């Protein structure tokens, strides 16, 4: 078994209204940061995970996302793994 550092990113599904992202976008514009658009707020989840190999760790992390870390109705996720 090796231990992998797993980074999961959960984002609101594209096309769904993201009021928190819009609020941050408005605040950035109000602060004078011109040209910021398409702002979205999500979650970053980091964990150490044991696995036989990288593919195994990725598969288990994806299963975690499907069952708990992301809501399949409203969110998309990505999984990145480093040794």
């Amino acid at each position: 078994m090796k231990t992998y550092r797993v980074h999961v990113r959960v984002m609101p599904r594209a096309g769904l209204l993201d009021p928190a992202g819009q609020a941050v976008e408005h605040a950035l514009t109000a602060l004078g940061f011109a040209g910021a658009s398409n702002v979205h707020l999500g979650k970053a989840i980091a964990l150490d995970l044991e696995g036989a190999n990288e593919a195994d760790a990725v598969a288990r992390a994806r299963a975690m996302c499907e069952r708990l870390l992301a809501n399949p109705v409203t969110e998309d996720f990505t999984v990145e793994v480093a040794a």
Partner: protein
Amino acid sequence: MLRVGVVTFPGSNCESETLRAIARVGAEPVELWHQDSGLKGVDVVILPGGFSYGDYLRSGAIARFSPIMDAVRDHAADGGGVIGICNGFQILCEAGLLPGALVRNGGLHYVSRPVDVRIERSDSICTRAYHEGDVIRIPVAHGDGRFVASPEELAAIEDGNQVVLRYAGGRMLDAEGNPNEATADIAGICNAAGTVVGMMPHPERLAHPALGSEAGIGVFQSLVLSPAPAA
């Protein structure tokens, strides 16, 4: 006598109001605990409002894995009655017992005020005491109450007549319509059989004349009026 259980999770609220409303309509209130593995033989189980497990990750996402939820899932599968109020609705969606999801209110603000909701079907386990088209004024209190579903799920919900309550506001200044930008003004839905119901408003908070209104007591009277469960 109909026995109705109320599950307390860490962070639940209004469970005592719910138990009192159950007693008031002549049913037997039964306290249940999230770590119980059984439902003590109740006929109907209610998941109350609140902020179970601090709403960490997503509202209802952690509570859905509580030990008692396996029994709730079995009860629902056997045709038993299950009602989720506010956080309870969020838990039922997270558990896959109802379709869709409840996300952050459109306006981002936590909303705590009365709303007018229209009874869309009067044959669910908790709306039999009302007539279709009745409008009742009961409170909402939530930050994550905007109902969303994929276009396919939404079509299935509408085609299956699974909308139980819709925001019907615009009748008074402090209770304007849809408080959270919910899709299609949806305030509550049920499964196809009408035996599992989730709603964002809190009927138990207005279920006694001493509170100035008992507009919500019908939700609990309906349980007593419902046919005896098969289970």
